[in-house]
């Protein structure tokens, strides 16, 4: 079987595994939307702060599910990899002529498929609630692409941890840490409106801020090339580094003896 065929088989396996477990599909879609719906109402008063960049907090906050859904992608990819280690699937795979990378790429394609459909759901929910989408029709594929790229980066991080630790519990343990990165960013207020200096500093150094701002810029600003360059650039860098680490971890796991 060709490498592409192997990747296709592994991607199919990953997608089927995900679809057969509602717990891997529903939380990444429903939970971020629920949280943004609550926060949008709870923090709508924040739009009255002078300099707030949107008339509606919903428009400002709908970018968050794209990133929060990616955190779930990290957990799903990591847990799936850890399960493959725990159940011995990877060891059995090592005895076959299959390309190592087919497993990793296939797994990530499965997670990205979920991220793709999640992004569509977020957009539909956003439009249904009256989102004023400033970047127009071309912004739709751009925001989906950025959402999927962010999901790829986080999923690769999850896969790396799953492969390194070989433990589903360890993967679940990083979820709070990822949430820390999310909340200590410009997720709730623009960085220039964060009053506390120390918090603004952390948010400025936190790459998640730029991922959120990249997605958000397409909704509330239009085509802000700087925000998009930072968003796409950082998402690509995170994905490349994490994929390299995950590939290294997989190589170690699949050493043929």
């Amino acid at each position, binding site marked *: 079987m060709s490498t592409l065929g192997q990747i296709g088989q592994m991607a199919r396996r990953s997608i089927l595994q995900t679809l057969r477990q509602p717990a891997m599909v529903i939380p990444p879609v429903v939970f971020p939307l629920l949280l943004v719906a*609550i926060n949008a*109402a709870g*923090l*709508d008063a924040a739009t009255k702060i002078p300099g707030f960049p949107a008339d509606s907090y919903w428009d400002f906050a709908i970018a968050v599910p794209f990133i929060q859904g990616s955190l779930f992608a990290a957990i799903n990819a990591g847990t799936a990899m850890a399960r493959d280690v725990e159940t011995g699937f990877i060891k059995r795979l090592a005895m076959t002529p299959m390309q190592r990378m087919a497993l990793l790429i296939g797994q990530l394609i499965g997670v990205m498929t979920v991220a793709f459909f999640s992004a569509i759901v977020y957009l539909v929910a956003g439009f249904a609630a009256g989102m004023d989408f400033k970047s127009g029709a071309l912004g739709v594929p751009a925001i989906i692409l950025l959402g999927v790229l962010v999901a790829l980066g986080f999923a690769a991080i999850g896969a790396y941890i799953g492969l390194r630790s070989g433990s589903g519990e360890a993967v679940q343990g990083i979820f709070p840490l990822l949430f820390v990165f999310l909340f200590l960013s410009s997720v*709730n*207020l623009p960085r220039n409106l964060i009053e506390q200096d120390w*918090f603004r500093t952390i*948010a400025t150094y936190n790459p998640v801020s730029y991922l959120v701002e990249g997605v958000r810029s397409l909704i509330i600003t239009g085509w802000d090339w700087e925000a998009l360059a930072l968003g796409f650039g950082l998402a690509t860098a995170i994905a490349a580094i994490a994929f390299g680490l995950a590939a290294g971890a997989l190589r170690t796991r699949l050493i043929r003896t």
Partner: protein
Amino acid sequence: MSRFLDVTHAVAWRTIHNFTTNPAFFFPSIIFPLFFFTAFAGGLSNVGNVPGFDFPAGYTAFQFVFVLLQAAAFGGVFTGFGIASDFEKGFARRLLLGAPNRLGILAGYAVAAVTRALIVGALLFAVALLTGMRVTGDGVDLFGLIVLALLVNAAATLFAAGVAFRTRTIQAGPAMQMPVFIVLFLAPVFVPLDLVGGWVHTVAQVNPITAIVEGGRDLISGQSFPARVAFGLALALPIAFSFWAVRGLRRAEAAG
């Protein structure tokens, strides 16, 4: 009565011992509330400048009350996780066989949850005061706030225990956690009720947690408030969930 107290003491001691000696249980309980406090009070402090936001003790104290009540509630939820885990390991079934008074098992877990809430609450208070939180209420007000938090803890513990006794698996964790999380966040979390917009405003008006959160905020800032409503609701919740938990315990007994 002495048999009830013996079982309560044994279960409470074991649960508290596990919580305080196992870093995997202890640190998340401490770090999560501190993190939420940091993210909300630090990251959103500018929300305190919104026109109409008039809270005398400042935004840090405003958020502290919510985080304290949230930490108390999640202390109860985590205790529910512990009960479910005890069932998965087979310990709870042996406990049901060995305990001369099974209500003592539920009471033991509840005592442990209260102790857990007191430890986490004390640390949260210390950090908040060290980071400059202003408290304009007096000692009696603060005592009232602590009582509110403990009643919320009891309600969450009894709710989560009821779920854990019925399902007897840690996979039911989301069924314990999500309702508590959602009910808490459907209260006025970031701004006073008057400034909450949209559908959440409507829901928050009928959410019992709203009166408890607002009562807590009035206490920390020394403002007058409808104490009977806040404390009445805070007391009614654990009483109602005690029936849920005891019936759950009976189901676990029947399941063998």
